[in-house]
């Protein structure tokens, strides 16, 4: 069991990050921290993809290098996914700015109280 985990340390870190991100997303009352949690969660998935492409003892996918090669495709996919993640963060933060201007707080519970009193 320990051997399996030790030899798959990178996967472990990836899934740990997903767990931490999900916990922040659900557990934190602060809207900005929720957005950060979302980012950490996505980063875990990105690392999982990148790690899955690695072949031990393989060389970079260049014509001048000798086979076997590591797979370049997941890296390319994740570049796209990172761009998507950045855009999502931008939209999320723009919304947070609007919410902060209206309620003067980032705390979810306080916002809920303000809305109930309206």
């Amino acid at each position, binding site marked *: 069991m320990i051997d399996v985990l030790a030899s798959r340390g990178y996967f472990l870190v990836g899934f740990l990050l997903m767990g931490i991100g999900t916990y922040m997303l659900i557990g934190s009352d602060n809207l900005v921290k929720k957005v950060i949690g979302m980012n950490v969660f996505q980063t875990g998935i990105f690392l*999982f993809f990148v790690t899955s492409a690695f072949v031990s003892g393989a060389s970079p996918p260049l014509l001048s290098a000798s086979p076997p090669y590591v797979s370049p495709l997941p890296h390319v996919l994740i570049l796209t996914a990172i761009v998507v993640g950045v855009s999502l963060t931008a939209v999320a933060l723009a919304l947070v700015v609007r919410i902060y201007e209206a309620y003067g707080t980032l705390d979810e519970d306080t916002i809920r109280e303000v809305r109930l009193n309206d």
Partner: protein
Amino acid sequence: MTDAIALLVAVPIVFALFPIAFGGRWEHMGWGTAALGALVHLGLSLTVAATVLSGGRFTYAVGGYTPPFGIELVGDGVSAVLVVLTSLVTVAVVAYARRAGPHSNTFYSELLVLTAGISGVFVTGDVFNLYVFIEITGLATYALVATGRGPAAALASLKYLLVGTVGASLYLLGVGYLYVATGTLNMADLASQLSSVGYGSPLVLTGFGLIVVGLAVKAALFPLHTWQPGAYAESPDSVTAYISALVSTAAAYALFRIIYAVFTPAFDAAVPFALDALVILASVSVVVGSVLAVLQSDLKRMLAYSSVAQFGLIVAGFAIANATAVTGGLVHLIGHAVMKAGLFVGVGALAGVAGGRTVDDFAGLAERAPLVSAAFAVLAFALVGVPPAIGFAGKWHIVLGAVEGGRWGVALVAVVSTLLTLAYFARVVERMYFRDAPAPAEESVAAAADGGDAELASDGGSDGDGDASGAASDAGAEPETISMTARIIVVGAAVAAVGVGLVATDLIAVFEPVLEVYF
């Protein structure tokens, strides 16, 4: 000719740039650009549909890279019908938004980006490409929901963004699992590779679970629907009509593609509990969504919860996994889009006359807005499933398929949901037709009942602020009239709901060749 399928995605994105790039110079160019973009999109989708009708299924290798290495676009009966639906809804919503707003160039850009994303979901044949289109759809939708007035819209949008991103990320993780198992991302290639890897493999099973949960978030199945009522209720009417018609539809369609084009019915035969679990999730969604809809007093929220129930029914149809039920699911998917778009435009238009959008505000509306009220009632009964409307054709096939597959539970749930649908629509229609209007509205009867007034008002064009979403407008305010475009759209949707119901057999004939491959 088949280049049209790639242009379906590219053209709206290019058009979306213009209102942002030149909006500073020409302030009102957004609407014109969007209208032109929507019409070009309609032309392209009709070309794709014509190609499919004459030659059957076709594929398109993007950039000339041969699949499975490059990205493949697929046009077949189902995707052709759905892209035509997308174009028609886009044209209708752009026309409606001219008066109903929101009036900003960025709104039209976002709408065009959303059109591109949804078209992409419908035509792609690559699972990672599907993720990108789902996220484009998501991003544009979050921005559109936030165009609603006030901070409540921003809050609803942020909630949608956080939940939706987790859903899409789970889908991406599932795709990662399948990629690790097979080394390919092309749907057709995945289907053959998965059977050689073995459907029982933990990687494949986990991948299926993650993908289904991710897409169920996007399609708003209970208990993953929490983002949806807020997002529908807080966004402007034109946005609600658009996203209720197409956004969840795109997710449900993606689920259909994943189950049948990637996992294939052989997966169901090898691992029956996977789709059994989905049937149960969907059935719970039907019942809970309907009950929550009955409990709502705000009509937009009621329609939103109704969508939770209807998508439960559609996904149940997909998960029963026989040709009849899947046909029913697809017919209901298209019918639901037409009916919900019409109903949301109807609520928006009628709320302007009624001065509010709760069930009680609608009392006696039939006298003040007879045409739109009648169309609204027709759409409501079409969604309940009264023949010959499209709602009946879809539900009928789902129930028939459930009985064929021996899923008596689903058949029972579909019947119970029909009763509950009747319960929440009947109380609205009853108030509209058989209750007297509240007293202070009397002067407005003369103003609004006359159709001629509305024509004058619609001539006012974009300078009249027709945003009907201001639900709690003060009692003293002059009630708004219904714009001519809103009338045409609601009546058109009602006619379409009945008309498509009458030609449902032709629609099913278009789907048949697609489903024949799977069953």
